[in-house]
């Protein structure tokens, strides 16, 4: 036991004395939360648009004014020909062009029918859709002011209720994802690099001839990272509650328990990777390609899993982060209890046991 604690102390010192790495380990989740929380939003606002007004009458000026005043749009350019539209799009300056035909107001007054053309840069389909919808809504509003308030017969009124996240904040979706990502990164990637580093530098030899059994050597390697990742989880949760205003609805104890379980899963993956890798570079790339990306892809927080082709949906089931993500979402945001997530928990425990068994039994005590 004494030997073991000395080993743990050695590993802690490794991390503690590498201040740059420690600095990044602590700050990475914070920066991620801030970026995801404040900078990344699919909500469309201040989209740059241009107007090509061939009538220049009261009606078109009024509509232009309404559109420019909306917070979704930012009128940056007046165009004077169809060629202009093409050129402006090609320079990437605008996302939407509004075209008024000649004699707009005249048509509207005399035939009760006028046309407006919206041209969207659909290279980004969702944004193009949203922008066209917003512009159409503004034009419809203007039309309403013309018709005054004649009520339409046979009207269906739809009441819309947004559950769990009425303000449609992105944070509710990504906080659980960032937690999974950070734990994966800190535990799996850093542990695998730390172990391979000893191989590459040759210090592994010294460790292997020590009286401590290999099993305990590995455990000692992982313990400091367990601490760091717990610290990270605490940081994320605090930021989440006090900066992003996303409360922890369910039981905090359950959340922490599940997080520790997932940390152990990640640590065992790290050990497994370190078994196969000879250089730190290989360990790093293996973790990046086989852990970081699948976590990003298949956990469901960035990309909708249900849109993927069936083979990928099946693959997503072997990614531990997916299950952790479901658990965190259920406990933290929906406030459900253990009964709702016992299946997912069982899957994670199963994965962990298999990974631990494989990685420890494959750990080589002899240098090649």
């Amino acid at each position: 036991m004494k030997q073991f604690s000395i080993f743990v102390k050695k590993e802690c010192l490794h991390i503690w004395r590498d201040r740059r790495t420690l600095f990044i380990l602590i700050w990475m989740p914070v920066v991620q939360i801030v970026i995801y929380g404040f900078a990344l939003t699919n909500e469309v606002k201040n989209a740059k648009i241009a107007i090509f007004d061939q009538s220049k009458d009261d009606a078109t000026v009024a509509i232009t004014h309404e559109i420019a005043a909306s917070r979704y749009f930012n009128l940056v350019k007046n165009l004077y020909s169809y060629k202009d539209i093409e050129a402006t799009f090609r320079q990437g300056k605008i996302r939407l062009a509004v075209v008024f035909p000649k004699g707009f107001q005249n048509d509207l007054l005399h035939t009760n029918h006028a046309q407006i053309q919206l041209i969207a840069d659909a290279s980004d389909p969702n944004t193009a859709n949203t922008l066209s919808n917003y512009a159409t809504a503004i034009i419809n509003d203007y039309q309403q002011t013309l018709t005054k308030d004649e009520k339409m017969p046979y009207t269906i009124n739809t009441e819309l209720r947004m559950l769990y996240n009425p303000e449609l904040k992105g944070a509710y979706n990504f906080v659980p994802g960032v937690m999974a990502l950070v734990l994966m990164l800190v535990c799996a990637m850093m542990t695998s690099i730390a172990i391979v580093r000893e191989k590459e530098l040759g210090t592994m030899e010294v460790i292997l001839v020590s009286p401590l059994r290999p099993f305990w050597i590995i455990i000692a390697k992982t313990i400091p990272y367990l601490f760091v990742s717990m610290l990270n989880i605490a940081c994320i949760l605090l930021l989440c509650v006090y900066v992003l205003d996303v409360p922890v609805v369910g039981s905090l104890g359950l959340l922490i328990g599940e997080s520790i379980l997932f940390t152990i899963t990640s640590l065992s993956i790290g050990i497994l990777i370190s078994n196969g890798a000879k250089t730190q570079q290989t360990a790093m790339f293996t973790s990046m390609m086989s852990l970081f990306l699948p976590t990003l892809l298949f956990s469901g927080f960035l990309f909708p899993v249900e849109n993927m082709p069936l083979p990928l949906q099946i693959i997503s089931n072997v990614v531990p982060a997916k299950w952790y993500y479901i658990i965190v979402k259920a406990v933290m945001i929906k406030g459900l209890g253990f009964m709702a997530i016992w299946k997912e928990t069982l899957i994670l425990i199963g994965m962990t046991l298999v990974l631990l068994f494989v990685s420890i039994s494959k750990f080589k005590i002899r240098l090649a």
Partner: protein
Amino acid sequence: MRTLKFLLQKELRQILRDPSIFVILFIMPMIQLIILPLAADYEIKNINLGVVDHDHSEYSRRLINKIISSGYFRLKDYSATFSQGLHAIEQDKTDLLVEIPQQFERSLVAENEAKLLVAANSINGVKAGLGSAYIQSIIRDYNQEVRLQWIQFPRFDPQPTIEVTSSDWYNPNMNYRVFMVPGILVMLVTMIGSSFASNNIVREKEIGTIEQINVSPIKKTQFILGKLIPFWMLATTVLTVGLLIARIIYGIIPLGHYITIYVFASIYLLAILGLGLLMSTYAQTQQQSMLVSFFVTMIFNLLSGLYTPIESMPVWAQVITKLNPVSYFIEVMRMVVLKGSGLGDIKYHILALLGFAVFFNGWAILNYKKRSG
């Protein structure tokens, strides 16, 4: 010049003799470029729908049929009560719940007004937003159908109407992959390039071979160039492989010239590799440099406009995107591939990146010291 030649020879041999290099350079990017775009499909479809129909009338059935036949929704749950419907949302079985109240048909026909309730699981805000927008527009269409059934509209518009027609340029089929593949390719080239470069010098430090270089008659500039050029060649190869995959698998043929892409990419790579080397001159261990470069590329990628539009970001984040080489390349790549922009359209982007390249490489040369310790 001769020194540089030998240095290049050494670096290339060192890289090419690493057996894992082939996998890292070719196999992994290929797999990613094939899988990522399949996964990164933001198009909102297949929304799981739950229905609670208290009315069981012809009208309510017609509405449900109309919603399902739109193609956006899949009927996954049909509950008798609202709380059962909510339970399905809680279990992630459904994303959206429509409740049709009793007397829906009668109040619509007799009282001219009927109510509907739509509840959405909005943990994923985008999905909830678009999903409820779709369903509302379907309900509006349905509403219009009902009206047409009961009212005879005159031939000319009785009230002023403005007809809005919208056209979608550059991607009329609204194909998400055409948008994502060029961006993902940029991300891949960036990740591979910068992590290799940032690892390289520090690896020599850690293994100790840097001592030999320090005592050789190699100038600082030659040393950095000797590191830069091989990685530049490798990253260009990865880009070429990527463009080929995009063409063969996704049928993405740039509207603009490949030359435009390569001209821009070569400058971009100088900048991003310079940044990697700079990080490498500061780092003491590989673990450190990997983590730092990972951290920096992560921020660059997130704030590059790859996933979310830059205009929607707050001002401080938009300032960062101006200082972020990745955002320039992603923008240029999309412009060239989708809109056919030429060198003239992207001249400011090129200037900005030249600036980055000079800055990072200059700093790296200044910071590389031949004296150890």
